[in-house]
């Protein structure tokens, strides 16, 4: 039924997919240096997954990943995000404290005042939060598209469950 699109589109989307994913991860990872961040990169990767969905059909896609797994992934991202915020409460003083800024090992360096050098090892807790949110957004947005596409493609014409339960 839903067999996806022509061979050309399938091939091109397969070739472009890793490219989109790595680019989305690049945007997520460089959220504190260049335009981007968790949401933007997540949206890019989710769009890439949506491309696979439209090229190969939702039945193929649901064979690769199910919406329950996506839901769990999303929960993981959300829990990671809120745990990072709670760690601010534990190591710092308040909720959402940026407790990593100022240390020397992990994302702790501080660029000089008004410096314009892009140093990856900065930003405190921001890169970690970017990844948590990125995971969440990827899983969430793709889950929306996947669920809607799969559910509507399995509807038959004129099919409707009876009104009485």
């Amino acid at each position, binding site marked *: 039924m839903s067999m996806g699109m022509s061979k050309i589109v399938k091939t091109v989307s397969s070739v472009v997919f890793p490219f989109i994913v790595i680019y989305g991860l690049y945007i997520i990872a460089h959220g504190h240096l260049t335009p981007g961040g968790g949401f933007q990169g997540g949206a890019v990767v989710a769009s890439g997954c949506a491309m696979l969905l439209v090229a190969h059909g939702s039945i193929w896609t649901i064979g690769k990943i199910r919406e329950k797994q996506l839901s769990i992934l999303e929960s993981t991202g959300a*829990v990671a995000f*809120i745990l990072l915020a*709670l760690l*601010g409460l534990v190591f710092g003083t*308040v*909720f*959402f404290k940026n407790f990593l800024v100022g240390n020397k090992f992990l994302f702790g360096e501080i660029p000089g005042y008004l410096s314009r050098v892009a140093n990856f090892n900065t930003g405190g807790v921001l890169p970690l939060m970017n990844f948590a949110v990125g995971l969440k957004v990827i899983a969430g947005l793709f889950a929306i598209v996947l669920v809607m596409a799969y559910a509507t493609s399995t509807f038959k014409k004129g099919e409707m469950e009876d*009104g009485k339960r």
Partner: protein
Amino acid sequence: MFFDNLPALAVAVPLFGAFLTPLVSKIGDRARNVFVILVMGLTTTVVFLLVNDVFTNGIQTYVFGGSYQPGETVIRIFFEVDGLSAFMAIIAVVLPLVAVIYSWGFMKKETGLDKYYTLILLMTTGMIGLVLTGDMFNFFVFLEITSISSAALVAFWVNKGKAVDAGFKYIVISTIGALFVLFAIALLYGQYDALNMAVLANSIQYTFLDKMALVLLLVALAMKAGIVPMHMWLPDAYGCAPSSVTLVLIGATQASLYGVFRVVFTLYGRELTTAVNQVSLNVLLSVFIVALALATIVVGVLMALKQSNLKRMIAFAAVAEIGYMILAVGAALSTITVDSNTGVTMLTESGEMALKGGLFHIINDALDIGLLFLVAGAIYYATRETSVNKLGGLARNMKYTTVFFLIGLLAVSGMPPMNGFASKLLIYESTYQINPILAVIAILCSILLLAVFVKVFHSVFLGPKLSVFKDTKEVPKSMLLAMGIIAIVIVFFGIFPELVVNNIVQPAADALTDMLKNGLYVKAVLGVI
């Protein structure tokens, strides 16, 4: 450490629970139910600790992600909990707790329960955040959380077309409302470059754009609170949602009402008595609000008379009850005056009494209407029927439910031993002093409401036992427990109204008047005005 961070934890705990629910659901249904109830219990504990703190020590502020000394530029997000917020937080956390207990039995046969519980927890988060926050944009975000989760829950029974329709209506209305709120926030931000409510309240200038923002905020929040010209979504949503969800929805509606209070009294409270064409702004606002309130009451009661569906009938009663609250607050608003000697803005005594009545009625309304909806849900659970005309003679088989319905009936129509009487009496008394006509209309409508429900009671519970409902059994224990909790609280509030008014309602009313008199809300953030 724990006690310093109560405002943050009040939001973080249910949110964390919501994020964990899909993971916990993997273990099993029972574990999930226990987990959700535990999370709700923990949230309730945190909120009550917070409320206790606020009522004893005054306004609590909490800065996310940094420290703040008065005098610095306000950048970060603030939580600011005063009496009113604390008062609303109690409602926002108690109703979902009861709803979760109720849905253990009520929702047993449904699928998709992990998402259901997740959404209930998220809705709780939204409501708590909505009432605790002190930042305009954060307010918008929580408003969206509340409305999206409510809409999804309203459409829980997707195989009923009406439920999905109601959910769609609800989400369109609330999204447009939220976008208006966002536009108003943008207008305020564009002028004052601030998003904090206290800072905005301090620097507001009453330019034309400010007035526009006020109108937009009021329209949007009134839309969400179900005040008359925009009330059409409310009966649908209340009537089509599962009863446990309706209970939480009442809380969401009242959180929007809280938004109205916050905007009028805090954000625009500083110069509420500014004259606009020789009429001061508060009088204008109060005339407007009282007219809407009267319309709300009358429309609600009249429409309730016409309904044959039990849940829709209760929903229109809920509309009427919202009218009572607005009526009291609008009446109170008209009595604001500036003392010419001291220059202090204050309310008259009857105004304060009306305010107290209105606030007390908020909590009573939540309980009364909530109980009625739970009873309607129980009837639906037992008989799969909601039409009044087809029901009859249920009293024999469902004794407890009958008693609970009776309690709810008396309470909602303001009969003596119940809590509804206490608050409505305050409203009648004070509005009579302000304008007798208001009180008369209010009393008449209340009596009509009583008539409506007595008729329902007669036709549903009394009368001959119908053969269709021969095998109906009493509902599961958890549902009875949930209804019982609310019923006991209703009776308790009815017997000791003074206790409640002095301990819970008085601080909230004080918080509202303090904003006008001393600007405590602003002082708590900025140090000085």
